[in-house]
């Protein structure tokens, strides 16, 4: 759907996903790397653990569907080449420190003079303005300020960050949404504009129901409680029940839904507990149409927890998955990447996609598109580019440079 749009992608690892998502809809995304290759090509993991700039799986994942040219925009010559490309582009995406593009003479005021329709999407940790605009916005600092770190982990240990850092992926996706809104408005106004995407704000948006409401209404700061994320009100007070439960070969996610709407699956659950040789205890006496935990004491609720723990330990996560599907119980297995690749729902929808990597002599299985569209495709069409792979396509075929021009630029380290 977006094949009519040309996007110049100046981002580092903070912003890759923005161009990738737009590229998944067919946008023509040109990744601009500094001569010698983008430093983010050093991010692991690596293909067969070979730490080579053409083998970074992080690069593969978030730069698929992009072409690549090398260009040093820190040089005056490089900037002139960039400006030529801006003339025919629709969007420029960047994730430099706020103010950097202005400083080197490629800020929005300059770019919009060259091309009034250009949309400049800037992705940063904290945003282009404000007291934190010059903050060092590495992932952990943004994650901590978002509020997610405080509510994650065990109560007897420090707050915990994910082992897979991803704060900026949220900033990048906010940038993608903002970019498309800008393109929609351009249809009316004929002009581009700036999109200021902040990973911090994106994450604060995401966490607002979970932590902002308890604070706004009851002056309660939600804290970390390991796997116990489900609040239950009993007759004598609040207790937290697990959201993730251990089972025979891993874990499952189970959230106790009560009320008449869930009576049928809850009854089915009690039968299943009995069939598994576990005494359901008070669950066997629940009036599923009317009862809530507020009719029971703290000790009785703890009993319910023990029953469930015993029950889950009798089954594997896929047995629990199959049984829950049948009985329409809201219970899912905690899946790892290996499990995901074999998971029937994803396999049935042909979610996994094989992508050719000719230089590696193989195909690699990638996740499929994030949506299925009626028109066109959404998903990886071709692998991430090699360093300067499309220099000829862009510099020679499009900008009309000669071989001699290219050699000069290379020797002068512009490309």
């Amino acid at each position, binding site marked *: 759907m977006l094949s009519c749009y040309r996007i110049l992608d100046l981002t580092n690892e903070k912003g890759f996903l923005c161009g990738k998502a737009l590229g998944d809809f067919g946008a023509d995304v040109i990744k601009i790397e500094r001569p010698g290759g983008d430093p983010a090509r050093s991010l692991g993991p690596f293909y067969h653990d070979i730490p080579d700039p053409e083998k970074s799986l992080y690069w593969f994942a978030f730069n698929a569907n992009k072409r690549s040219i090398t260009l040093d925009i820190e040089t005056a010559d490089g900037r002139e080449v960039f400006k030529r490309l801006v003339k025919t582009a629709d969007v420029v995406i960047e994730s430099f420190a706020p103010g950097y593009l202005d400083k080197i003479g490629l800020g929005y005021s300059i770019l919009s003079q060259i091309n009034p329709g250009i949309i400049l999407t800037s992705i940063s940790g904290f945003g282009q303005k404000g007291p934190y605009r010059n903050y060092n916005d590495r992932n952990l600092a943004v994650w901590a300020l978002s509020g997610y770190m*405080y509510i*994650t982990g065990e109560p007897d240990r420090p707050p915990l960050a994910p082992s897979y850092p991803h704060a900026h992926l949220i900033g990048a996706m906010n940038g993608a*949404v903002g970019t498309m809104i800008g393109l929609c408005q351009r249809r009316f106004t004929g002009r581009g504009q700036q999109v200021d995407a902040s990973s911090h704000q994106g994450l604060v948006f995401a966490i607002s129901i979970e932590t902002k409401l308890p604070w706004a209404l009851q002056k309660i700061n939600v804290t970390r409680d390991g796997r116990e994320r489900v609040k239950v009100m009993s007759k004598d007070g609040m207790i937290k029940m697990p959201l993730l439960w251990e089972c025979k070969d891993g874990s499952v996610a189970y959230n106790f839904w009560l009320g008449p709407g869930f009576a049928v699956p809850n009854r089915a659950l009690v039968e299943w507990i009995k069939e598994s040789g576990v005494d359901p205890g008070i669950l066997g006496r629940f009036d599923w149409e009317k009862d809530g935990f507020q009719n029971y004491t703290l000790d009785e609720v703890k009993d319910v927890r023990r029953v469930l723990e015993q029950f889950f330990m009798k089954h594997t996560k896929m047995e629990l998955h199959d049984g829950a599907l049948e009985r329409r119980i809201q219970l899912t297995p905690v899946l790892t990447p290996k499990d995901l690749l074999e998971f029937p729902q994803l396999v049935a929808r042909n979610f996994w996609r094989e992508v050719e990597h000719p230089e590696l002599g193989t195909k690699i299985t990638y996740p499929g598109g994030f949506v299925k*569209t009626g028109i066109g495709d959404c998903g990886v069409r071709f692998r991430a580019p090699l360093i300067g792979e499309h220099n000829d396509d862009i510099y020679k075929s499009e900008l009309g440079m000669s071989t001699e021009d290219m050699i000069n630029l290379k020797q002068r380290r512009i490309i």
Partner: protein
Amino acid sequence: MEKRPFEGLKVLDFTWGGVGPFQANFLAYYGAMVIRIESAARPDVTRQHGNVIPRGGAASVDKKTLLEYSPAFAVTHPVKKYGMSLNINNPKAVEIFKKLAKWADVFVESFTTGTLEKRGLGYEDLKKINPRLIMHRTCGYGHTGPMASQPGFGQTVTSLTGFYTITGWPDRKSVPISSFYTDHLSPLFGGLALITAIDYQQRTSQGQCIDQSQIESGINYLSPLILDYTVNQREPVLTGNKCAYAAPHGAYRCQGNDRWVAITVLIDQEWESFCGVVGNPGWTKDAKFNTLDGRIKNSDELDKYINEWTQNFTAERVMAMMQDAGVAAGVVATAQDSEEDPQLKAYNFFREIEHPYLGPQKFFHPPGFTLSDATAELHRPVILGEHTEYICTEILGIPGEDFTKMEKEGVFD
């Protein structure tokens, strides 16, 4: 005056819970006319959990009004929407629904597969009435496949993305990041698809059906982990707060009760600045901390020294000192901290809006991005069915006496 991005766009919002509404909201923030369809007989799940008790007690208001006392609903719908009450179990309501589908440019829905089809309101049916229509459907697992008919709740949908395996201490089990994480991550992908389809519709007058499976969107955030498995047969490893390419990296205890600051140092220059901030004590000169490799190998000892230093200061002070010197540090913020966060204030992020039943509330906010030439507009949440008569008579042109007759027949319950 400047035309807003979605000015003149007509949207039908038939979503419930989280996810669906967030996607329709992008359009409402930026000028679309959104008609939200609900039913008092089968209220949205967000209207029913965590509700505030009215001042006079729950019995002092009727059941329908009680549904307006939901903060969860309020924070999910901070935009102007026209409220239509419609009970699609009534055949006359289905006819009205079809009239709305003809009126609309976009129809966003998030019900379980089959809900609309069995009432003749599936995409194939609506396409005949309105070939230009974009029907955007989101659900937990996808509208096809063995799980197509399962309702999806964020707590359990997240489990099928891999997101429950990426956080934890190495000597303990993995923990969730949030109670319903994908509910807030998948709408960014779905919202992007929706707006892309709108742009395409404006260029070509073509409609389409978009099918979002929230687990498929969720997995797209974790592609590097998927590739690490498909290529290297390696599963995610829990590393606690450690990082393979940074040290210091973690949460450090500060003054006060459960107050922490997160600090991360990657490059030598940041390390030198860090040492300057802590006052260049003897331990920073220990040869083993000179290199990143040495700091990572001895990170436990390093963390011990840092904790001894940070506990003399507030988290805010440590963050300020570190950031002044160019070192990445952030207060491990609570919700209270976020309310007072000066960066969020600079963006006027949290806004106070007078809620008709909850009173003035400060939890309303715009998206995580700002546009230079368009403003995200906030509004008090829609009241269930508040514009039903207006929509029927003014927008759909249904004569007044027909409307009254249908009202009595329960078409709008």
